[in-house]
């Protein structure tokens, strides 16, 4: 019997996929089974369009304990018996519809992924993209998203270490809200998300189940949507207080030996939680939906199984310990109910009382088809990549100040303090470097160590050249960590793209992942977890391909961390790295777009030099040779120097260093592999010797001092002027 297109659309399955299900089951699926297949085979849960591409990403290193897909988040060893657990995940579509709750529940979901593993969450970050703030609707989305992150995160008592915020036209109807969480656990106490051990009990803990969030995974996250208002009911409402209780109770539980596993309920609710843990455990599960506590009357088994009500956990309790586990949750005033058990037959059996409403093999439910396609490079990329710097006038000594001030005040570059001060970033007593530096630094109590965190992803580069953009996203994140003195350990990524069923978008996805894979291999940084958010489109227009990289690094001795601001008058300022000014390095730069309205030209990176530069910077910091290190990124050299000046209110008196070629490229070009460092005069020759050993150019730019930034006679501005532009730039637009 052919099922209607409307029904298949509702669960986001194609006719072909439906036929496959019928063939494998040997019969038509029941209504509940169809809903379960739709969710588990969705892009959000099943990764059907991205799985084949993601395999290219390296995921091994000596320190990696949990690889992507094995558990809710990846884990790396940091020594002293400790591991960090981390993941980034998108909540783009819900945030487009209901910004406050969408962003809030994004935080809630990613936090559950972390404490599910028995790790205490110690840091949050967010990577955000919006349309221009000149538009009232974008301002509404921005305010709602920031408010939701603050409202939920602050209530949990987990410091939010910032992240990044960018603006571009392509995000106007489709903001990106990626939430990152990192936790810390004892290596021997990691909890697995496995439904294992026949006869063990499935306990549902936390919120009651309601009709909220039905079809979140199959609907919102796995296809484009035109009439967004229709989908408002698919957005959930968060209760951070309940989540806080769950964190404390579940971490207490993780210390016991009463449980066999734990899994949060996220996208596709009970369906994915129970079936995926059964798949990991290698057995089956049986659930009676009548035992699931409900928020409202008259819910069908289908609704119970697909509800995405927030703040719920599934605990696999060892038989005989259910009384103890229940008592623990009672103490935290959390509701807990046994809703089923682990079976040995490999079947996911859902019952309503005595009536079986779904009975399908776990392996089939979790084996969504994998699509891989050959696609051609889109022709239009030629037009974007073909850019001649000589088509625009170069700067003169008379007119270089104004573009610097405009760049500093542009929302992409301006200080984000008016956002970060709304996030509690100091709770936990670990925050060494606050949000807003190249990377945030948190010390690890009980050790001498610290971790360093950053998120990066320049979507404009990826739009013009997805392969190079993918490389640069990884390289820049690693460079930011190097500037803080941290050895990069691992990354987690969130791949935000348009509809992958379109050739051009699939090409972008494929090339971006290939670029990231290459950079990860060369820099020896494994990818330990991640998330894919596809179908980010409005009215048929895809967003820029936006891979977001969140990376963690390790500082062996916290005292030896480094920050971006100049420290003392009289220190010498050097540019480490690419000193050859390449005219084309203004390609795809913030300068070219903001000042000339052009989004064109390949970005540029020499990966081999990048690696030497990062090693050189790390050694300089660990040997105590340099006092500050700051990565040259958006806005180029002039912006980076201004930021290093503004951090501690110390100016720069420049030398007439050698710069061949165009001045706009020298000042505002975005050639990668460049770090600005400051050094005490007595350490100067040691730094030069070190740079020489790594074959890294060290160009002396000037001396720290005064209250102005001067550059080669081109830039001459007081710190007050620079500060007003940079500090107030974003806030003025809100």
């Amino acid at each position, binding site marked *: 019997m052919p099922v209607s297109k409307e029904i298949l659309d509702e669960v986001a399955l194609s006719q072909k996929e439906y036929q496959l299900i019928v063939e494998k089951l040997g019969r038509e699926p029941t209504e509940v089974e169809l809903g379960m297949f739709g969710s588990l085979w969705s892009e959000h849960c099943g990764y059907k369009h991205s799985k084949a591409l993601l395999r290219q990403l390296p995921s091994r290193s000596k320190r990696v304990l949990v690889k992507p897909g094995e558990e809710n988040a990846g884990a790396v060893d940091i020594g002293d018996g400790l591991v960090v657990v981390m993941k980034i995940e998108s909540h783009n579509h819900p945030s487009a519809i209901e910004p406050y709750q969408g962003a809030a529940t994004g935080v809630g979901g990613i936090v559950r992924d972390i404490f599910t593993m028995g790790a205490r969450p110690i840091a949050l970050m967010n990577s955000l993209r919006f349309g221009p703030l000149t538009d009232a609707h974008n301002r509404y989305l921005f305010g709602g998203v920031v408010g939701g992150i603050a409202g939920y995160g602050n209530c949990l008592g987990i410091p939010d270490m910032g992240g990044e915020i960018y603006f571009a036209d392509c995000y106007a109807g489709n903001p990106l809200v990626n939430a990152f969480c990192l936790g810390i656990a004892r290596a021997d106490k990691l909890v697995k998300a496995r439904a294992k051990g026949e006869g063990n009990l499935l306990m549902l803990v936390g919120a009651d189940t309601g009709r909220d969030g039905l079809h979140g995974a199959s609907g919102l996250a796995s296809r484009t949507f035109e009439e967004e208002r229709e989908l408002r009911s698919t957005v959930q409402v968060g209760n951070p207080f309940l989540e806080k209780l769950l964190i404390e109770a579940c971490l207490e539980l993780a210390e016991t030996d009463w449980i066999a596993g734990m899994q949060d309920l996220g996208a596709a609710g009970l369906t994915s939680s129970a079936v995926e843990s059964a798949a990991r455990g290698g057995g089956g599960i049986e659930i009676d939906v009548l035992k699931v506590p409900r928020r409202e009357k008259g819910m069908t088994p289908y609704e119970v199984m697909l509800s995405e009500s927030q703040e719920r956990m599934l605990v696999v309790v060892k038989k005989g310990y259910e009384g103890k586990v229940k008592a623990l949750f009672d103490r935290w005033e959390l509701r807990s109910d046994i809703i089923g058990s682990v079976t040995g037959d490999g079947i996911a059996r859902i019952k309503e009382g005595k009536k079986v409403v779904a009975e399908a093999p776990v392996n089939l439910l979790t084996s969504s088809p994998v699509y891989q396609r050959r696609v051609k490079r889109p022709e239009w990329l030629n037009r974007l990549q073909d850019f001649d710097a000589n088509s625009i006038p170069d700067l003169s000594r008379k007119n270089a100040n104004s573009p610097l001030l405009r760049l500093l005040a542009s929302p992409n570059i301006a200080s984000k303090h008016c956002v970060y001060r709304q996030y*509690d970033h100091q709770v936990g*007593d670990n925050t060494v470097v606050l949000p807003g530096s190249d990377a945030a630094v948190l010390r690890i109590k009980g050790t001498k160590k610290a971790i360093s965190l950053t998120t990066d992803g320049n979507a404009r580069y990826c739009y013009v050249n997805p392969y190079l953009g993918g490389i640069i996203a990884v390289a820049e994140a690693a460079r930011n960590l190097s500037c803080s003195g941290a050895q990069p350990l691992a990354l987690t990524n969130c791949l935000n793209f348009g509809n992958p069923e379109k050739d051009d978008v699939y090409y972008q996805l494929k090339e971006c992942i290939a670029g990231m894979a290459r950079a990860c291999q060369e820099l020896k940084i494994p990818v330990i977890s991640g998330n894919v958010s596809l179908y980010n489109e409005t009215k048929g227009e895809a967003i820029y391909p936006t891979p977001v990289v969140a990376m963690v690094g390790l500082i062996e001795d916290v*005292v030896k961390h480094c920050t971006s601001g100049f420290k003392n008058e009289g220190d010498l300022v050097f540019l480490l790295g690419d000193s050859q000014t390449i005219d084309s390095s203004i390609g795809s730069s913030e300068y070219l777009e903001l000042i000339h309205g052009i989004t064109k030209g390949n970005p540029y990176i020499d990966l081999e030099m990048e690696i030497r530069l990062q090693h050189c910077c790390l050694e300089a910091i660990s040997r105590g040779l340099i006092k500050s290190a700051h990565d040259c990124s958006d806005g180029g050299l002039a912006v980076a120097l201004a930021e290093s000046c503004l951090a501690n209110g110390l100016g720069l008196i420049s030398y007439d260093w050698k710069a061949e070629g165009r001045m706009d490229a020298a000042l505002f070009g975005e050639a990668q592999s460049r770090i600005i460092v400051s050094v005490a005069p007595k350490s100067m020759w040691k730094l030069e010797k070190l740079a020489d050993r790594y074959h890294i150019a060290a160009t002396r730019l000037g001396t720290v001092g005064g209250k102005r930034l001067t550059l080669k006679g081109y830039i001459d501005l007081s710190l007050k002027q620079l500060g007003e532009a940079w500090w107030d730039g974003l806030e003025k637009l809100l």
Partner: protein
Amino acid sequence: MKFGIIIFPGTWSDRDCHYALSDILKQKAEYIWHKETDLSEYDCVILPGGFSYGDYLRSGAIARFSPVMTALERFTAQGKLVIGICNGFQILCESGLLPGALLTNDNLQYRCQWTHLRTENTSTAFTSQCENGQVLKIPIGHYEGRYYADDTTLAELEADKRIIFRYATATGKITEPANPNGSMNNIAGIINKKGNVLGMMPHPERACEPLLGSSDGNIIWESIIASI
């Protein structure tokens, strides 16, 4: 001496207070569950920061009904020391142990930032180790921290020198820009009439090590230790 740190559902500064006291100041510190009814073994009780019961209603409005609050009233009546930080200050105001109320910040946003506090009275159990007028660098993190009291109460607080800390500039000037939330008279912390209950919005437990940017918070803990 022994510190007790109360945990209400939703409290989150409990661990930071415990860390500052036991790891940095090497004091005995224990957690107290909100259902506890006997506080007799403690010398000083801390009501830490957080969002007790989610603070969906007025901050602290539900926590004040916790069983431990009855015990806390007896504890304060005995003259023992109590310090309420952030949410703890809000709970103390809600319970009537301190006068006034903490309203939503005048900027209508959560604020997490470093502030400077001028010590206004050094002859209290909480400030005895401070110099007169000493400026302490201690951060805030709150959404409802704008201190409000009626004119009579405010005049009384001023006259009795019960305003212990005011938001100030780094050099100790009391100015409007130095006030992060619109508190009346730049009030950051007050004590009760008896002088044994302190409420303050800034977090001294977050300023416990130079590595974290300041260790000025320790002066408050050291004052408490010295007074017992």
